[in-house]
């Protein structure tokens, strides 16, 4: 049972990786990275049970929290860049 889930997760990770490499738009890649992070959380949880060490779920928790910060950092990066471009255009005009 755990093996089936593990292999399914692996497949999804590979698919997300393909999307991240091929793109084409920036948002595809951001979503793909987010998806990849989620799949890593799932993979860790499944493997923790597969190995019989559920206390390793701590790690999955850390990944979930860190992933959220990463996505927010990307959002903030784009927001700041758009704001800066607008400011530059205003100075130019």
């Amino acid at each position, binding site marked *: 049972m755990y093996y089936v889930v593990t292999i399914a997760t692996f497949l999804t990770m590979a698919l997300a990786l393909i999307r991240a490499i091929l793109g084409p738009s920036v948002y595809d890649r951001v979503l*793909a990275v987010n998806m990849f992070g989620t799949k890593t959380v799932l993979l860790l949880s499944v493997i923790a049970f597969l190995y019989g060490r559920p206390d390793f779920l*701590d790690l999955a928790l850390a990944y979930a*929290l860190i992933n959220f910060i990463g996505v927010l950092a990307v959002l903030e990066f784009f927001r700041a860049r758009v704001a800066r471009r607008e400011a530059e255009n205003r100075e130019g005009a």
Partner: protein
Amino acid sequence: MTAVFGIFLLTLLVITAVAIVRTRNLFVATMLMGIASLLIAANFFVLDAADVALTEAAVGAGISTVLFLSALALTSDEEKAGSSRRILSFLVVAAAALVVIYATFDKPKFGDPEAPVQAHVAPWYIEKTPEFIDIPNIVTAVLGSYRAYDTLGEVFVVFTAGIGVMFLLSYRRAGHTPTSRAPDPGLRHHLIPRVLGRFLIPFILLFGLYVQFHGEYGPGGGFQAGAIIAAAVILYALLEGEERALQVLSRRVLMGLVAGGAILYSAVGFAGLLLGGNFLDYSVLASDPVKGQQYGIILIEAGVGMTVTGVLLSIFHAFAAREQ
């Protein structure tokens, strides 16, 4: 089965690495670096190295992405086109790769009980840790007590690297005055990230403290906790703007953390000397040597956590200050 998992993850890692090298867009490279970090962390986890996997997750996937994006905000999106030395560098890399592959033929098989790593001091650590230190996580025992000198060295490396990065980033060209701009609002006006983020920050801090002080019993310790706590403050800076984060933890406090952690670690070592033991020998810190070892590990882990938090946040703020 471990080998199959490992091979699959490492294959994906190679594909990602090639894609990082080939892409010209630096933002895409940053995103792929995040994936590479997650892959290598998952591989560490599959190999049962939970402590390293936690470090890689917190530093590689979390903080590195944030720092790469901060650096990217200072430069353009596209990599500069070709340099003439490409063939030469390719040859050097190919030769190095061949040497490394050749060297792997001599390595012991995966999981071989006769391998030097299993036969050297590892059995001694596993046998003696319950008697000397009495904590379940042997990695923490090795890191904090048996090899405390190395960890002290690592803390000073982190300290020195942090000072170096801040020194480089605070450099300004002569005559260049920073333009004063209205304080950056961050994501303050976006309701969903703000509500969710504010809700999460206390939990991330709590989790960081748990990783810090539970390091003797589960995966974790000062390095991981430092990165997680720094991530929580960075999240606050993203949501509320960088100035607000500096009001909470000012540069002075951060500098205090950076230096204080390293000093705390060394002070524990000297306390051992003064109480009649060796440098970084914690057994003399309490009347019961086992308790002394545990106190010592808790204290030096606190020192490690302080330095790592301080350095990571100082670098983050140094990048942000450079943007203005």
